[in-house]
């Protein structure tokens, strides 16, 4: 049985965090209907619209990041700025369990689609809102994207090279964090409704989601302890602990000596009996004090080997080490392939393409296979007729008024 069998989600998600929350629910087997504005996808080819399939053919269906974030969903188009569009949405609300949106905080109310309105059409509805800063407070009306939130949570300040400036993590962190957190909150609200019959408005401010994983620094700061950030790849409790250059272009290996026993094993691999006999290096305190020298030695040892060779040799000795994988290597790494970290979906316009799976698996009753992202408006007819109860002539009128479209357009 699908974990979210029988659950219907209307997703009004934009950019990363909202769509990501939607696909997590879709991956768990919910029927997620993505409601897209007539102009939601770019009509013209833009970056990452892949030329491999022809420059001009439906570029709006060939955006790889969009397709990753919107897999396991259906798609309809609806112009929510006009009354006819709102009416269709509200008739869908009546037959859905969840409405998920990540507009900035005022938009749903401005559209006349606030929680109280939705509730009148479906008393048990769960509205999940994901504004960047929340619906109230001094910054409620600020605009922002993911990296701006990582800057405000303290995460960017704390990351960085020794002696350098702040550094954001990856492309962003808080987007994925908020997306999965919103999916968690949605499922918790579903359970609450199952027990009590109550729906509710769930609010997830991306910034507040981002505070969890820097919580230790915030707790420390609140009692006047300054947290040592920007340590490069060093650790306060392990040494050596770093990333070392290997043979080959931009090829690196991460090594962490977690305890004194692992240090002795590393010393044997390095063929440095003088280190083995050096009592000052036998404890982590001693190694932390001598990190510059130890890193230079380990660095020299790594430089002539491939990252995978270093990883294998150290792991055979029970030392934590891993090649720093490039994006393409994530698709071929035997462990990640075995774990199904990037299942391939068959997309009508992109062909076979990999999408990043959630980081958990059900061992006994696996979740259904990940489904490809829907083409723009692919489910207009099915959803409008079967869920919104629209007649064929009503659907034709919606199309005529461009309330529902089958290709993106600007304005109208």
């Amino acid at each position, binding site marked *: 049985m699908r974990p979210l069998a029988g659950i219907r989600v209307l997703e009004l998600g934009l950019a990363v965090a909202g769509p990501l929350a939607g696909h997590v629910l879709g991956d768990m087997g919910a029927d997620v209907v993505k409601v897209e504005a007539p102009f939601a996808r770019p009509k013209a080819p833009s970056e990452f619209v892949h030329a491999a399939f022809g420059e001009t053919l439906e570029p709006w269906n060939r955006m790889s990041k969009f397709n990753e974030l919107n897999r396991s969903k259906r798609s309809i188009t609806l112009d929510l700025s006009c009354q006819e569009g709102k009416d269709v949405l509200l008739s869908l609300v009546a037959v859905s369990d969840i409405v998920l949106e990540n507009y900035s905080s005022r938009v749903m109310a401005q559209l006349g689609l606030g*929680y109280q309105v939705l509730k009148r059409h479906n008393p048990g509805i769960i509205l999940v809102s994901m504004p960047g800063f929340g619906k109230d407070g001094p910054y409620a009306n600020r605009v922002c994207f993911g990296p701006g939130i990582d800057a405000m949570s303290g995460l960017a300040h704390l990351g960085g*090279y020794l002696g350098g400036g702040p550094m954001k993590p990856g492309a962003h962190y808080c987007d994925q964090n908020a997306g999965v957190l919103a999916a*968690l909150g949605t499922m918790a609200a579903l359970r609450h409704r199952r*027990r009590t019959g109550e729906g509710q408005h769930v609010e997830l401010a991306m910034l507040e989601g981002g505070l969890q*994983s*820097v919580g230790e620094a*915030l707790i420390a700061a609140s009692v006047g302890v300054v947290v040592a950030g920007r340590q490069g790849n060093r650790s306060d409790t392990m040494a050596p602990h770093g990333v070392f250059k290997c043979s080959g272009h931009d090829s690196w290996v991460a090594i962490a000596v977690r305890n004194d026993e692992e240090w002795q094993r590393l010393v044997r691999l390095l063929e440095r009996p003088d280190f083995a006999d050096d009592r000052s290096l036998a404890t982590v305190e001693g190694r932390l004090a001598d990190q510059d020298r130890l890193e230079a030695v380990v660095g020299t040892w790594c430089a002539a080997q491939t990252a995978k060779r270093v990883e294998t040799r150290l792991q055979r000795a029970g030392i934590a080490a*891993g090649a720093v994988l490039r994006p393409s290597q994530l698709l071929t790494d035997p462990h990640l392939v075995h774990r199904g970290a990037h299942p391939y979906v068959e997309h009508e316009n992109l062909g076979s393409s990999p999408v*990043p799976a959630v980081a958990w698996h059900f061992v006994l009753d696996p979740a259904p296979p990940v489904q490809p992202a829907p083409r723009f408006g692919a489910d207009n007819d099915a959803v409008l007729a079967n869920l919104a109860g629209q007649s064929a002539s009503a659907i034709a009128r919606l199309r005529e008024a461009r309330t529902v479209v089958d290709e993106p357009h600007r304005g109208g």
Partner: protein
Amino acid sequence: MTSTVGALEDVNVLDMASGVGGPFCAKLLASLGASVIKVEQPGVGDSTRRSPPFVPSDRPLEGRALFHNLNLGKWGITLDVESPAGQELFQRLVTSWANVVVTGEPYLALRSRHLDWESLLALNPRLVVVAVSDFGMDGPARDYAGCELVSLALGGYLQLTGDPDREPLKPYGHQAEYHAGLHAAAGAVAALLRTEITGKGEVVDASVVEAASFLSSAAPGWSYFLGEDTNRVGNRNTSMDPKQMYPSTIRPCRDGWVHAHASREAEMLEVLVGDPELGRAELRAEPKGHADEIDAILDRWLATRDRGAIVEEAQRLRLPFTEVLTPEEVVVDPHLVARGALIELESPSIGRASYPHASIRFGASEWITARAPRLGEHTVEVLGQVLNLTTEEILTLQRSGVV
């Protein structure tokens, strides 16, 4: 009508994990209202009781901010599950009390302590077992030695962080491990929703390396279609197309750092900075391709201004600029204070401190934040009230070091 309890109020969770991922998963379940008993090894405790940052405390094992953040709202007991008496008590908790068991060790270590999912489900077939580990419960790297840094490397997120001409850089703290804990909690609630209908237990197998690979998000897909890898780009946006928007970066100003961003609002950036250089045709046509020049123009303007004024002025023009805040600034930030995003709690271990509070705000149920337990704080209570042991039986267990 509105409840004052969490959505998981009637769920009982045994947290057998140590470290970050498993305990964070159990902490999220506690925040959603579950009753969580954290089980620690007598005299030793969770590994995060020894991790930085250290905050002043009355006892050495009680003053770690990381432990406090990860174990909010749990009951704390000690129990040596490797002793026969301890194993028997643990099994009674699994059989008669728990709906969910969270573990945090690699598979082989779990098996040697009878904490593997096969043993747990044999005791209670309706159980949801949540196993959080670095590499997961199968696959060629299952038995690898791991840690945050290595998971970030093998999950690809390390390659995407840092400057292009320097070594890949580890993000602060335990981001991949936290993220795995979040995924595990989502998996746990999904499994509970199903188990409560089918009556059949489930095993949620979550790994830190996959959480890191999930964080790498679109990069593998781009490499697949473009035939080349995107790389780390410092604080800039990842786009390799010179026509793409810019800035999206972090730059210094007079009194700190700002995140500077302009996508469709290029004209507004000119209005903000007031430098005609920004309007040059080449910069307009290919902003990302002229990132260095745009940085230089921005830096000249930022250098004479303060962070607060910059962000305020930019936001007035609907430019998504934000401050780069320090942890000290986050805990007193006026917006977060007004929202009650952090909560002050009194703890016997570290006194009054602020903690991240409701990351999810529920209209009809609660997000609960209560302080973390001292090592073994609730042992007597749990053994007495949950397992109905007599005072004498508890004393015997204490004397023999089982609890």
